[in-house]
């Protein structure tokens, strides 16, 4: 089980990664994170939205109300150029971090 500290640090990275592929709305992000982490990382309204809004304030993502035929109005978030740069930077540091951990712990992935 991940600690809250770890979860918080990784959460922004996870969201940025998920938005890299396509714009998504809040509940979709919550479901994807939960599914892909196999239930290890979970969010709910009180934890997801402060995060999203903080990232929006930081200028990494931007939300837009989009109305699709036959669906209700939803706020979709997509990456901004600044967000993309932040994602790249985080990927790099993750890679370095994982490499460092690997070299110390000797854990290897197939």
């Amino acid at each position, binding site marked *: 089980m991940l600690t809250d500290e770890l979860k918080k640090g990784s959460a922004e990275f996870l969201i940025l990664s998920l938005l890299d592929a396509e714009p998504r709305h809040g*509940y979709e992000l*919550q479901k994807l994170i939960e599914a892909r982490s196999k239930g290890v990382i979970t969010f*709910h309204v*009180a934890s997801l*939205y*402060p995060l999203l*809004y903080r990232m929006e304030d930081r200028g990494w993502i931007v939300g837009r109300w989009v109305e699709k035929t036959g669906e209700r109005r939803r*706020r979709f978030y997509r990456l901004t150029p600044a967000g993309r740069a932040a994602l790249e930077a985080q990927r790099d540091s993750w890679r370095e971090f994982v490499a460092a951990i690997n070299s110390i712990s000797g854990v290897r992935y197939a």
Partner: protein
Amino acid sequence: MRDDRVVPDWRAEVRARLAGARLHPQDEAELVEEMAQHLDEQFIDLAASIGAQPAYDRLRQELREHGVDEAITRRRKRARPTAGRAWASGSLWRDVRYGLRSLRRSPGVLAAGTAALGLGIGLTTMMFSVLYGTIIKGLPFADPSRIAYVSYNDPQHGIMDGGAPLGDFQRFAARQRSFESFGGLFRGLATISGGDRPDRISIARMTAGVFDVLAVHPMLGRTFVTRDNEPDAPPTAILAFSVWRDRYAADSGVIGKSVRVNGKSYSIIGVMGEKFEFPDEAKIWLPLQLNASLAPGEGPSLNVVGRLRPGADFESANAEFRGLMQQLDAERAKPSTERPVVLPYIRATLPKRVYTLLYSMLGAVMLVLLVACANVTNLLLDRTLARSREIGIRTALGATRLAVVRQSLVESAILAGLAALLGTALAYVGIGWFNGAFPGRERRFWMDIRLDPGVLLFVVGLAALATIVSGLLPAIQSAKLDVSSILKDESQSASSLRVGRMSRLIVGVELALSSALLVGAGFITKSVVWLRSVDPRFTTESVYTARITASPTDSAKERVFFESVERNLTSLPGIDGAYLGNDLPGSWGGGDRFAVEGRTYASNRDYGRTRTLAVTPGFFTTFGVRVLRGRGIAGGDRIGATAVAVVNEEFVRQNFAGADPIGHRVRLGGADSKREWVTIVGVIPTTYATSLDDMFPPLVLTALWQQPRLSTVSIALRGPAEFASAPALRKVVAAIDPEVPVYATSTMTEELAQATWSLRLFGNLFVVFGLVSLVLATIGLYAVMAFSARRRVRELGIRMALGASRRDVLALVSWQGARQIAIGMTVGVLLGATFVRLIRALLFGVQPTDPSVFALVFGVLGASAFVACVIPALRATRVDPVLALRSE
């Protein structure tokens, strides 16, 4: 949420969670939308796996967590508009421009609202101006509230506001401490001669103190000093500005010249300024001669005035004078039954019924104003509903409730401002009319009825009041409108029902009130019309009247003078009749008790009552009165001959049961009468007298030349204006005695009209009130009907689509209005009937139950109410059913 099938309202849950955050409405709306949508979807997924209730509980629990607060902080993009900012001048100006634009788009509301409020403000301002100029503004002297009037009340003898005898006054003046200045005066008529023609004018004899009480200074010369009031002082006089201007050609060297008053010469010591008038209409002031030898209760009766000393008030002055009166009582054999009363000048000298009348009229117009405000409220309510979508959008775009309220108030302020302008104009016209209709001789010297700054301030105050009263309700209503429900769909059911009930109540009250006023107006109008058309049964056309007062000499010379006047008038060419008498027929005066010879009367109260008039033979020709039986007053009926009388048919009916009265003798006066018995020699028809309580009273004519004493005589001449009017009369009189004034020149028609001026004036006011309230009620009804028809457009569209004819729809819409009209009018007419009973004393020639008046009021009110109700109904039927259905 105990039922699994029910989907929770996450929007409401989130909104409740955000309630304390006081976000800007748009920020709040976005946050609610996003989270609720999230929760909706998550609930559906979660409920499928763990059941609805646990899912609901869990999501609610999560929503309560602290993270939401952080989200709120992050989402606080815009500052919530604060009150201070909302009322800032820049945005206020924007509201004014916006309000003007939007009012211009609905000229109907603008016109009806301005008209309603303008009429209300106009009437109220007019009545307030009358009240202000008559009572509130006070005397036109320095610090007028300290000027007091001291009068005697004698409840035992039923005498109120009597004067104080000179003997008492002199003692008060020496002993009193309440007043810093104190004076007494009495008034009279006097003949002023010298100059181009003599005149009869009002004069006042005053003590020096009166001018100190009024704190006035003369324009030329000086006012009286104590020395002038001493019995042996040389005769002095002070002139009014008009006398100085007209008789002395505004001569600045007039001081020291003399003026002849009642044949006696007075030295002019001063001239007062143009505006000075005190008391009513006095044109010359003479010193009042004091007399130290008078005992308490002796001497002529004076009007007593005083100026309160600083520190003294009316209460302390009253206490002091009661004490002084006890001292006076100790000096006389028998204590007086009179009690001194110290009151503010105007309160003491203006009849109480005038006070009551003015204040009740003001009350009535305030009611009209209230109705007008109610009307504007109704109009604005209708407008608010019609604009609910606009208001919703404004709110969604960030307008706070306060801003919405303000917008609504600004609009009613614009309306009230326009109405205040209209009302001021109306009041101006109304005051002009009132002043014109108010007869000069009823006017008191301090009355100055006009639109002055105080009154204008009052108008502005009224406009502000009207704004708040008529704007607040719609404003609050518009703020209450729920944004999202308005934006989602336009059904105005709930809120408009609330509004509708209130509007309908207001209109019901309006209808009732205006029916009541109209009933009153109807009866008074009928009385006025009846009075105008009443046949006096004597000739009034081409009859010119005047009064003359002989120069004071002995009675024989006076008689010779009046006889020459009669002779010369009768021999004037082109004249149909010349009359001299102690009064004019139809005038109010000249009532007396009388006894019929041979009958016994137990007490004074049992004696008969009749009108009396002493006439010359010219009475019959001048006024075209026939003698029915016996003879009229003849030339030979003089002193020395048998004293005769001619009575009218009413007198015969009351005293002789229709039997022939000729030969019977009557004596005028009551139990203590010393007058001679007069023999009835003839009977004339009953003629009109302008007494409103008894218009065809009994009358006894006696011979003028058999009167023991003559000094002032009324004259009437019948003939074409060039021969009979005032100039011709003056010439005749001047040829006999150039010192004799010819005054009170008038026509017989005017003389009769004067008796009914108050009835006509207040009757006309009542008619105006009634008509204004009719207009208001019509506007109000129209507003409510338009409003309810607007609400039902969809319903009516469905009805018409399902086959209802236009007539069905018309009937449906009008029915509701008709019910309201019927209820309002019934209540109003009942009220009006009660009211008419109360004012029965003002009604002439009409019974308080006269069905024709009620029918007329029903007709007029019903017709206009019907129109007000059918127009919106007709408009409703013109709606295309398809459009109506699609419109919402």
